[in-house]
Every structure is written in C-alpha cells, then in structure tokens.
C-alpha cells in the first residue's frame, strides 16, 4: 500500500490510500512505528509455547542436546566423521546452535502468516512484523541453549578464542539468513499452501547441506565457494571459528555466504511487500 504521511499541522497526519502498482517501496518507516508490536508478538510466541508445553523452556535445551548426543554417537563415534580436531560433541553442538535459529525461522516464520490470518484480515499493521517476530523468538531459544555450550566448553577444557568478539556478528548473519528465508517462505505460503508441506523436507535437505555433522574442510577446495552459496555454511563456520578457533578463518566462504544472505533478505523484503497487498484477500 502506498501511504504518504506529511506533517500538515502539529500531530495531524494525512494518509493517502491508493492502489499500488509494480514493486512498491519497503515502507520501513511503518515497520519502525510498529516495533513494539514485534516485541509483543515475540513475547507472545515464547510465553504461549512455554505455557502450553510441560517442559517449557527446557525444550530449547533438550532439542539441540539430544541431537548432539545422537550425532556424537553415530557420526562422531561409529562413523568417525572428522571434526577439525575438536571434540565431536562441542563441534556438532556449535553448529546446532545457529542451525536452531535458522530451522525455527524456516518452520515458524514460514507458516506464521497463515497461523495469524485472523489478525491479518481484521487489522492493519506492517505484515512483516509477523515473520520477523517468529525469527526473533528463536534468538531466545538460542541464548538458553548457549548456556549448555558454555558448560560443554568447560567440560572439554576448550578456551574461547580471541575471535569471540565476532560471535554477535555471526548471530546477526544467522538472523539475516533466517529473516530472508522466513520472509520468502511466509509470503509464498499465503499464495501456495504447498509450501507448508515443503518446509519439513526443505529443512532436512538444508541441514545436510550445512556443515553441522561434518566440517566444511571435507568439501574439496574447488567446490567450497559454490558450497558457501548456502549462507548457513558461512554462519556455522563463523561460529566455530569465533568460539573454537577452527582453522577455516572467515575468508571467501563467509564473504560469499554473507553476500547471499543479504541478497536473500533484500529480495525477500521486496517480494513480501509485493505480495503483502493481497494477504488479507488470500490468506
């Protein structure tokens, strides 16, 4: 929707509503005005989840921990998958953390518009706040699960490297990736409900394309940049580099991943905005 707001008199806003043609603008101003709604929706997602489930916040820990145990037994133990010289549990858990943020965004954000259809058909707000709130709810889970990682590092006597300052940047990269994919999927899901069925499969596929149970150093060098087109590659490698000091410093691979992630976010936002005007009629 195109709305221009100009200050006419003090506190008087003039809003013009007319059909938008073509791609329109991002309207980040409205998103900023409704920033509190992002907070409240994130808070609602968490609160409801923790109230409804018997284990509540423990889920945020159980999920990655159980995955880590299974991976450590089968991939690390039985199959002897290399782990860049790091104890396999720490190695896989470090990958599972940002992956959790991403897969949650894929699943929750992807479905978010359809689950919140009553709000969309009854009230105006920038629709982008819905998938973004779903993505942010994943950060809280991430922080809770992060405590376990600290425990693991103490247990395995691993000192955080001096690169640890870069960790928030990689978390940011994970959020950019998650938001980009979340925006694309949520908007597409309104139009094509098939997306709801594709998401679990996509998550699984994406998991194996990301170096969580294996190190990216196993990928032949000439394929590595192609491999890094999956932005989660850069995120996971970055996490390991910042926390555990793996050899693969954030070189070209991280750069490629970052560029792709930002591209996905920007195109996702434009695609979302383009589709947004039909949400109330389609959802």
């Amino acid at each position: 929707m195109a709305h221009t707001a100009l200050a006419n008199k003090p506190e008087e806003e003039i809003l013009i509503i007319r059909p938008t043609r073509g791609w329109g603008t991002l309207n980040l101003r409205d998103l900023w005005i409704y920033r509190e709604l992002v907070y409240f929706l994130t808070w609602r997602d968490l609160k409801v989840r923790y109230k409804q489930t018997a284990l509540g916040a423990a889920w945020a820990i159980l999920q990655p921990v159980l995955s880590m145990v299974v991976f450590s037994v089968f991939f690390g133990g039985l199959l002897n998958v290399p782990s860049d010289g790091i104890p396999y549990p720490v190695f896989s858990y470090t990958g599972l953390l940002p992956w959790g943020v991403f897969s949650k965004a894929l699943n929750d954000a992807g479905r978010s518009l359809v689950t919140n259809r009553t709000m969309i058909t009854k009230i105006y707000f920038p629709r982008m706040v819905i998938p973004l709130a779903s993505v942010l709810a994943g950060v809280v889970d991430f922080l809770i699960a992060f405590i376990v990682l600290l425990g693991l590092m103490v247990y395995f006597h691993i000192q955080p490297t001096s690169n640890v300052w870069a960790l928030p940047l990689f978390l940011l990269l994970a959020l950019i990736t998650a938001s980009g994919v979340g925006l694309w999927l949520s908007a597409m899901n309104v139009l094509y409900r098939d997306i709801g069925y594709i998401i679990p499969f996509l998550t699984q596929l994406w998991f194996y394309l990301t170096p969580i149970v294996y190190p990216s150093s196993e990928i032949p060098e000439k394929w590595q940049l192609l491999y890094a087109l999956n932005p989660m590659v850069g995120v996971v490698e970055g996490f390991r580099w910042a926390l555990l000091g793996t050899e693969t410093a954030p070189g070209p691979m991280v750069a490629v991943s970052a560029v792709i992630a930002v591209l996905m976010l920007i195109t996702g936002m434009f695609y979302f905005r383009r589709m947004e005007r039909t949400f109330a009629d389609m959802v």
Partner: protein
Amino acid sequence: MMSELAIKVEDLGKQYRIGLSPERYRTLRDSLVQAVTAPGQLIRLNGSRSRDRIWALQEVSFDVQKGQVLGVIGRNGAGKSTLLKILSRVTEPTTGMVEIHGRVGSLLEVGTGFHPELTGRENIYLNGAILGMKRAEIDAKFDEIVAFSEVEKFIDTPVKRYSSGMYLRLAFAVAAHLEPDILVVDEVLAVGDAEFQRKCLGKMSDVAQQGRTVLFVSHNMSAILRLTEESLVLDKGRLLLRAPTTQAVDFYMSSGFSDTGQRLWEPDEVPSEAAPFRPLAVRLCDTLGRVVDTIRSTEPVSVAVDYELSAPVTGLRVGIYLLTTRGEYVLTSFDTDDPELYEQYSVRPAGRYVSACTLPGNFLNEGRYVIGLNASSFRVKRYFQDEQALTFTVDGAGAPGMQWPEARLGPVRPDLNWKIEAA
C-alpha cells in the same frame, strides 16, 4: 467553526476474484502449469480473466467532516465491510483513492490477536499493541481498561477460562480505550448480551460526543438511528444514497426488495455455508391465496417459506422475524415452536418443504413492515439468515380507532375489547 475534512473517498473500487475464499488458494501446481502455458504470468496477480471477477465496491465517493458520525448500511454483500477494510488499510483498493486526516482506529472485530493461553493482563498489552497503542499508552490506561471490563478478579487468569461475556467485555474495553481521531466500527455490537451492547453503544456515543469522527457499520437499525445523524446506503458495491439517517434507514428498509409480496432466491444468491438448506421463496398471501404486498390490518395474512434441503437436518427450525422499517423487532417465530411439530420434525429428511404460518387479523398497526428469514438448528448451526427478506404495507382501514386520523405509536393495533361501565 469551519468544518474540516476527516476522510475523503474518491471513486473507490475493489475487485475480487470470485470464490476467493480461504479455501481457494492457488496450488503450486496450478502456477507451474500456468508458467508453462503462459510464461510471464506466474508472479502477476491479475492473471485471470475478467469474468472471474466481481466488484465488491465500485465508484464510491464521499467526504466525512471532522466530528461527524456517519452510519453505513446495506445488505450482506453490499460492500460495507470492504469499504471499512480499505479505510482501515487491511486491504488495498483496486481503483480510486482515500485521503485520511488523523489517526485511524479500526474495530472490525474485538479481541483480534487475543490468545486463550495468555492472561487478561497479558492480552490487554498484546491486543493494545496490535491495535497500534504504545506500551506507555497502555500502561497509563491499564486500570481504566480493567475497570471498564469488570474482570478485575480474573485479570491474571488465562482468558480461556473466561466466560464468553467476560472475554467480550475485556476485548471491547481495550478497543474502547484506543483514542483515534477517526474510529471505524463494524458490527462489534452484533455480539454479546443486551447489557454488553448497551455498554458498547454508550461508549460509542461518548466517542462521538468528544468530537471524534466515527464511521459505524451495523445491521442494528436502532443503533444506527441512535448514534448517527447521517448515513450512507450501499447496495451491490455502489453508493445509492447519502441522507439523514432516518431517511436513509427508511429507504434501506423498504428498497431493494421486490414489491410484489414475494422474495425469490436464485441459487447464486445463497451462500454456500447455508447448505444443506436452500431458501427458494418467502411469500405473503391473503385469505384468497393471492400473493400481496399490502394487507389490511383487520385481515389475517399467511407467510409461507418455500425451501429445499439437500440432506436430512436434525433439529431444523425455519422461522420468520417481523420488524418495523425502523428495525425494531415485533416478533420472532419458528415452525417447530409447537411441541408436537417439534417432536414430529426432529429430523427433517431431504426434500422440498413449505413452512407457513398466519399473522392474525387485528394485529398490526398501519405502516411498513419487514419479514426476515432464519433457518437454524438451535445451538448447532445457523444455516441461513436474511433480516430483510421482504417488506409489506399494512393498511389501517377498519382498524380500531381509525376515526381519529393520527399515527398511533407502537407496531401492534389489536382490538382490545374495551368496555366502559358507569360505576
């Protein structure tokens, strides 16, 4: 004081694809097929042909001045909700433009975003944020909201444990404390008990008296008459009339219907949710069985509802409402009100039926009346409802008291068998 513009609507139109309901989303396969057969159409939303489309709203233009309380009336599908959805930015127009001066608060529904697992307190904050209130604003009004809702004791209980009345009161309380320059309200009053409706109306007239602009859509004609001075009448997406409310309501209640004493329904006029019930006709017949639209106050008249059931229905009751053209109910009556008929028709097999009743003579006052239709299974489902199925005129000739040429108050004019005795 010079009047200032609050809303300006120009040549507004909204086109929908037919059958664009939640169930009718596109599948990826359709789009892939389309992409192969007509490349370049994949991301175009207006790809389908014009015969699949209808105008829910067309060439609507009007202005609203600041402080004006404007009613919007029209039958189902007239475009009222579409208009409000465009004004509140939920959906985008297809043509035309709207200029809005000031902050808009829209109440298309109360309790949007309420979550059953969250407590009353939590839902106030969440709902407030969804309605566009700032956190500080909610903090400041919190006590007032709670007091208005009368659920103080349960404010920290999840709303899933609330009775529906408490839930509605809380939801409305939040919405009522939104302080927009322009308030857009749709049918909020259609829910809740009489006490709740009274409270809502009270709050709405407060808002109106504070000099704010209100756009009010309702089927409740007495509420429209009470709250608004001027109204728009919409029909089939077009603006038919803008007039002082008394005039608009009268026009609405007596127009758009056949004046032959019967109302027929074409298959495409009946919403699909009505199945297995399908109304065919409502007829008004005099004692000789002729279809009439004017009856005499002194003579009985029969009302016949002709309908079809495509499947057996348990507990079906088909009935009529009788209303005045001011929207006041005179009576409600169902075909299985009689206990014997109720037993006999506990399950109505598929087939075609006529349910008929008689409005007795010496019953209605002179004037215009409206017959509405309702088909429902009590507490199970309302299959079909049309509150303005047909209108008719009652002629007072021969009724008691006609020697005085005056309008008698009240919708009924029975012969009360007065006796006068010298004592």
